[in-house]
């Protein structure tokens, strides 16, 4: 973020609630995040932490019945939550791109790949075969004639990346784009995605479970818990010296980072399901460094060691976590 140019994406204190006939679930509880042009941000957190909702929110792609009673979302200065439908569609078309979790499901099953690409890129003149070559698809002419169910998940995800990047979006949101792929293909798709984004100056929000991958590809990392971004800073700093106890616990629970011979820690308890304004810090029941103020006072953002942290007692490191939080299993 250079001083002077406004950030590309501003998510400011957003509350998002899913409403059904019988209950209200609060998926985002005052989430804030800012991303500059060309930045690569990894968003990590357990399932249910609000990652996916945050990703969808950027394009106002939340299902009907979802309410955002508080907060604002700005993309390139435009307030996403207030745009009329046609302007919103144009914003999605011109600035945003999404790479889906299930690449095959995201393609129309009844249309050949080539036809879908032509439909999607109808006002972007493009050589489809060249487009597919760009994402390392061999024999693109053949692939263009296939139906989605005839190609592999990795191939489909490359097609999705090609479709997303063909319009040179300002912001790319990838919601666990590699969850359905096997590990070799995973690496390849990530490399393609981040290389193409870097070439086009595209900002990337990567919603991920893969801390190692985020460390490799993202300059920044935002940790989410209970519908809020609880720690946000440069990847290197956050991963080497986490300030929020939840970040520490998350790192300690990552099998890829476990040193040989040490015990893998799991985080006891379950993530919260909120329905309205919670009192205090929602991580407090699972937190080892919680003090008396934690269950009572809601933590406000503060700057600690060059990053934003939502915690009353930042700096607790996982190495000092007592063994009682180890999994019994």
């Amino acid at each position: 973020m250079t001083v002077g140019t406004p950030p590309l994406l501003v998510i400011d204190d957003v509350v998002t609630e899913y409403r059904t006939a019988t209950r209200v679930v609060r998926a985002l509880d005052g989430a804030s995040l800012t991303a500059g042009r060309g930045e690569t941000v990894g968003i990590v957190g357990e399932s249910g932490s609000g990652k996916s909702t945050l990703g969808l929110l950027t394009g106002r792609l939340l299902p009907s019945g979802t309410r955002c009673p508080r907060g604002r979302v700005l993309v390139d200065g435009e307030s996403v939550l207030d745009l009329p439908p046609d302007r919103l569609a144009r914003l999605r078309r011109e600035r945003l791109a999404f790479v889906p979790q299930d690449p095959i499901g995201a393609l129309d099953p009844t249309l050949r790949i080539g036809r879908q690409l032509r439909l999607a890129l109808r006002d972007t003149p493009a050589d489809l075969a060249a487009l597919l070559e760009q994402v390392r698809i061999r024999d693109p002419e053949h692939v263009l004639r296939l139906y989605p169910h005839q190609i592999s998940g990795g191939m489909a995800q490359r097609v999705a990346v090609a479709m997303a990047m063909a319009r040179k979006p300002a912001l790319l949101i990838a919601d666990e784009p590699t969850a359905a792929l096997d590990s070799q293909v995973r690496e390849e798709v990530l490399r393609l995605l981040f290389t193409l984004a870097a070439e086009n100056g595209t900002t990337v929000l990567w919603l991920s479970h893969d801390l190692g991958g985020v460390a490799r590809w993202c300059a920044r990392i935002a940790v989410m818990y209970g519908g809020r971004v609880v720690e946000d800073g440069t990847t290197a700093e956050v991963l080497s010296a986490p300030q929020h106890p939840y970040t520490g616990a998350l790192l300690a629970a990552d099998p890829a980072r476990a040193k040989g011979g040490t015990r893998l820690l799991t985080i006891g308890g379950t993530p919260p399901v909120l329905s309205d304004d919670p009192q205090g810090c929602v991580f407090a029941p699972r937190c080892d460094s919680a003090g008396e103020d934690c269950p009572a006072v809601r933590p406000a953002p503060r700057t600690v060691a060059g990053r934003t942290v939502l915690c009353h007692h930042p700096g607790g490191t996982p190495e000092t976590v007592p063994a009682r939080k180890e999994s019994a299993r």
Partner: protein
Amino acid sequence: MDHIRWLLGRVATAALTMFGVSVLIFAAVRAMPGSYTELVLGPLATQAEKASAAARFGLDRPVVEQYWHWLSNAATGDFGTSLVTRAPVAAEFGDRLPVTVTLTALALALTVLIGIPLGVYTGTRDSGGRGGVLGRLVSAFGMSLPEFALGSLVVFLFTRYRLGLTVGNYVPWSQDPLGSIGSLFLPACVLAVFCVAATARTTRDAVLGVLVEPHIAAAVARGEPKGFIVRHHVLRNASVPVLTLVATLSAYLLGGAVIVERLFNVPGLGSYVVDGLDRRDYAVIQAGVLLAAVVFIAANLLVDLVSGLIDPRISVLAKGAGS
């Protein structure tokens, strides 16, 4: 390759079903009370007369042979002779077919032109609000109007109050093409009410089912306008169940529009068959019921083939799901 194997499988199944249908019809007709010869000759015929008649009609031969004789003749378009009119059944069918086809085409046109757009509209607008409830009420109402009740009402209103179209005067196509369509318009409307409601409902369900698929969410995320998504991604995906229903409806209209044909004095196929039943005209019953079933099977086979072209996954899925 898979696709061709799947097609052959579907054709084989259809053939098997047709065989079952023919056996069932043959057996049902044999099981009907009153012997054939008695009907032809009357109750006063002597044993010798009966025996010679039985020989003449082939009734003294083994049942399997009789079945085969009937089926092979039917396959070449020879449905035997009507007991009542002594005319070939095939010729009578030929006279009545254009009437039934016109009636079916009119009703189907109404069904497709009204039912499908209505279903797409309610499917893409309604999100469970008051409009949704109204839509459900209207479609439930349309599907709850039996044609004998609705038809009686229409006949009553149009005869009592002279609303322009005359009822019960069928005008043959050869006399006056426009008048013929006019004379079939009311019965077609009565038939169409149920079909429109059923089609609108099926279309709506299919559209709602497609709208929650992830590829639609992906299209929305790409910023495609709603109309574009509906035209290019929803309609095609939602079309298979609608096509299946339209095929079922057309078969039902071609062979089963008995009640409306009777109410409006339309000389169609359905009423011919039911008249045949009243007169125990076995050749007519056999042929008519067989034809109705064959049309149904053929229409469904056709829809299967078309569905395979629309949604290429169908052949793969069917293979995966089979046994």
